[in-house]
C-alpha cells in the first residue's frame, strides 16, 4: 500500500494541528511516528484511517482517498489509546464484529492472544481493567492483519511484560506477512529497535524522515574541549550543545569515525534522545 501525504493541513478552532505536511510511505515497513504531545501525530493517523477529514491537502492510499472508501477502510485498522470499543459490548461480540468487517481477520490468532493475555470473553468492555482494555485493543490490531495497521499509543495500563509480549508477537506476525505498520509511541526506548523508518513531527510539521539505521549511523554525540568540538561542528548540522566546565557535548549529524579522528569522545545517540533534542525548541 502506497501512502502519499500531500500538503496536508488540519485546523481545529484556529489552531493548526497539521501544517502543510507532505511525505510518502512507499513500502510495507514498521514506521515509527514520533513527536511531542500535540505534534499532530494522532490527527494524521485519524485522517489516514478515514475517521476525520483534512482541512486542506490530501492523503492518497494507492491513489485513492481513504474517507468513506470501502476498498480502503476495510484494509486499514487504527487502534488508539482508548475508546476503541463500545463499552457496553462483550469482548466476544467485539471480536466477532471485527471479524465480519475485516476480510483478513485471523480468528485463531485472536483466540491465541486472548488466552495469552487472559481476557475474559464474556465480560463487557466497561468491566475490564485499563490494562485489559488496552490488551483487547492490541489483540484486535494484530488479529485484523490489515495491510495498514496503525497503533496510536495503544498501551495505557499495559505492564512491561504485556508490552514485551506485544512487541514479540508484532514482530512474529510482521515476519510472516509484511505490512505497513505505523507506530506512535512515547515509550520510544522500548520500540526503537523495531522501527525501520522514523518520522518526527513537531507542531504540525515534519521534522525528519529517515531510515532508522541511517539515523543510528549518522548521528553522534561528541565531547571534548569546547574549541575542539566547535571546530568539528563547523559546516555540520548541530542538534544541540551542552556545556560544562570548559567541556562541551554536542549532538550532531556527522560521522563517528571523523569525530574519533578529531580526537573527540564519540557516542551514538539513542533515537529517543534524538527526538527530544530535535523537538526541544524549534523556533524560527
Amino acid at each position, binding site marked *: 500500500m502506497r501512502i502519499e501525504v500531500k500538503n496536508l493541513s488540519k485546523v481545529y478552532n484556529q489552531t493548526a494541528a497539521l501544517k502543510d505536511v507532505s511525505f510518502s510511505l512507499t513500502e510495507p515497513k514498521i514506521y515509527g511516528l514520533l513527536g511531542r504531545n500535540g505534534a499532530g501525530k494522532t490527527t494524521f493517523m485519524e485522517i489516514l484511517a478515514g475517521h476525520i477529514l483534512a482541512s486542506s491537502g490530501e492523503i492518497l492510499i494507492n491513489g485513492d482517498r481513504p474517507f468513506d472508501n470501502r476498498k480502503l477502510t476495510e484494509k486499514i485498522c487504527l487502534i488508539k489509546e482508548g475508546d476503541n470499543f463500545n463499552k457496553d459490548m462483550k469482548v466476544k461480540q467485539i471480536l466477532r464484529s471485527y471479524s465480519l468487517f475485516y476480510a483478513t481477520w485471523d480468528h485463531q490468532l485472536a483466540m491465541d492472544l486472548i488466552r495469552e493475555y487472559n481476557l475474559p470473553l464474556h465480560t463487557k468492555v466497561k468491566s475490564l481493567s485499563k490494562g485489559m482494555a488496552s490488551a483487547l485493543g492490541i489483540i484486535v490490531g494484530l488479529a485484523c492483519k490489515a495491510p495498514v495497521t496503525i497503533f496510536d499509543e495503544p498501551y495505557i495500563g499495559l505492564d512491561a511484560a504485556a508490552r514485551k509480549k506485544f512487541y514479540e508477537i508484532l514482530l512474529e506476525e510482521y515476519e510472516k506477512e509484511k505490512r505497513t505498520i505505523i507506530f506512535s509511541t512515547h515509550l520510544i526506548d522500548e520500540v526503537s529497535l523495531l522501527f525501520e523508518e522514523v518520522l518526527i513531527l513537531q507542531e504540525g510539521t515534519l521534522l525528519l524522515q529517515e531510515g532508522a*539505521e541511517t539515523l543510528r549511523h549518522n548521528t553522534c554525540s561528541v565531547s571534548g574541549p569546547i574549541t575542539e568540538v566547535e571546530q568539528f561542528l563547523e559546516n555540520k548540522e548541530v542538534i544541540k550543545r551542552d556545556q560544562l566546565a570548559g567541556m562541551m557535548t554536542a549532538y550532531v549529524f556527522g560521522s563517528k569515525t571523523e569525530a574519533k579522528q578529531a580526537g573527540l569522545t564519540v557516542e551514538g545517540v539513542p533515537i529517543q534522545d534524538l527526538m527530544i533534542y530535535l523537538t526541544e525548541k524549534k523556533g524560527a
Partner: protein
Amino acid sequence: MKTKLDDSRPIYIQIKEFIEDSIINETIKIGERVPSTNELAKFYNINPATARQGMNELVMDNILRKQRGVGMFVTEDAKEILIGNRKKQFYENYIVPLQDEANKLEITKDQLIEMLEKEGNMDEN
C-alpha cells in the same frame, strides 16, 4: 553475548559484531550454521530487515555463505579473515588509546613494557 542491543549504534553493525565474535571465539565453528535472520530478530526483538542487512554484509565479506533453503554457514576462511581484520584494527582500537591514557597519566614507555611483562608473568603462574 549481549541481551539487548544498543539503540544508538546501527543495529546491523551490532549483529555483524555478534556473529563475528562468535566465530572468533569458536562458539560457532567453521562450516556450522549461524542463526537465521528470523531467529536473531526474535531473540533481540529487532526488525528482521536490519538483521538481514547485517547478515548480507557478512556474506559479501565472505564470512558467511548462503545455502538456499537451508541457511547461512560459516566459510572456511572466515576465522582467518576476521582475525586479520581485527589485528589491523588492534593498533587503532587498543594501542593508540593505551598510549593516550598512559601519556595523560605520565606513564613512560618503559613502565608500560614493565606492566605488559607483569601481565605475562601472571599468566605463567
